[in-house]
């Protein structure tokens, strides 16, 4: 596997250096590490990395510059894979990131970097065009006000929650301690109950679920 080229945007020097070390240790090539929004847009468009890891909050305004830079860059480079990190995850931002329906989107709490294995797996999944949504966003998205979800069994709701994070059937099976085949049955049943087109593609599954939740 060739080394993945990554652009990193984080204004806290210590965290930026830590992430650079982490990515280098996992065989990524950090092609740019920037600390502000305008520079991030320029580098994303000029360097076309395999994936970008971006802090929501960046100078000069220290508001949601990172998110805005990412959305602007994806308008110029459709589907550019981006994983956004934030101190606090907002459903609103998750929806904005996913709105173009092209996938290659991650949105995680910053704390998740402390689970190195899972974090690196999430970065790779996003680079492959998949989705990595924070469990806390997923929990909000699957909120009980969405009545049709009542038709799902508790097990199916669990499977749906994992699916919306971007997990494959094999990964869902492993964390729920059931066979991949059993997960397949649950997902088929979920798709039927929700009236969604079945799909084997992990990212399309997430987008289908989210599109359903939107509707």
């Amino acid at each position, binding site marked *: 596997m060739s080394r993945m080229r990554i652009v990193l945007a984080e204004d806290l020097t210590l965290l930026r250096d830590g992430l650079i070390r982490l990515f280098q240790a996992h065989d990524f090539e950090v092609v740019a590490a920037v600390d502000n929004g305008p520079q991030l847009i320029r580098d994303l468009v000029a360097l076309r990395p395999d994936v970008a890891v971006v802090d929501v*909050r960046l100078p000069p305004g*220290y*508001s*949601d510059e990172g998110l805005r830079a990412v959305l602007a860059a994806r308008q110029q480079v459709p589907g550019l894979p981006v994983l956004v990190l934030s*101190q*606090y995850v*907002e*459903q*609103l*931002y998750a*929806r904005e990131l996913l709105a173009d329906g092209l996938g290659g989107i991650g949105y995680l709490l*910053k*704390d998740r970097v*402390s689970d190195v294995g899972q974090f690196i797996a999430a970065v790779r999944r996003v680079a492959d065009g998949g989705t990595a949504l924070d469990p806390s966003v997923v929990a*909000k998205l699957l*909120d*009980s*006000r969405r009545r049709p979800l009542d038709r799902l069994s508790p097990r199916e709701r669990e499977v749906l929650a994992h699916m919306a994070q971007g997990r494959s059937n094999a990964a869902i099976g492993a964390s729920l301690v059931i066979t991949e085949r059993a997960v397949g049955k649950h997902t088929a049943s979920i798709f039927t109950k929700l009236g969604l087109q079945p799909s084997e593609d992990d990212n399309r599954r997430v987008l289908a679920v989210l599109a359903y939740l939107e509707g």
Partner: protein
Amino acid sequence: MVSLALSLGMAQDLIRADPDATAQLLSEARSTAVSALADLRTVMHSIHPAVLADRGLAGGLRALALDLALPVTVDGDAPAALPAAVQSAAYLATAECLANAVKHSRATAGGVTLRHDGAVLRIVVTDNGIGGADPAAGLGLRGVMRRLETFDGRLDLDSPAGGPTVITITVPHGPGRLP
């Protein structure tokens, strides 16, 4: 933070003598740090949500509405140059009204409308529930009223038995003051 420092200190002591115990201590330290972050985040969010700074009052309320267990539409906008303290007070007041609607009103839908005229910001929070909301019954609304008074703001409640509930929050934001 104290227990985090303690775990790290013990790990440092044990790193050569007992690698397994060190790994255990480091894993404890990590989960302590993560849960401290979660606590800090909850506190910060309850004081001044980041989305308010990012997107202003209307954007913050739209983000809040998405998280509620009640479909709530948010309409209109707030003045761009709203002082942060006023913005925060107006947000928390609206959030409290919506939380009450979710908890007590048995409503199936709610709405928030923001209007401003250069001097006064008016936020109307409605729900189609059972009405009968009483500021004397709980601390929440009274706290909100007191906080709004700090900014010469006020909260007017119209909640007849049988509903609907209409709450009007008024905050002066410009040079003008309420009559």
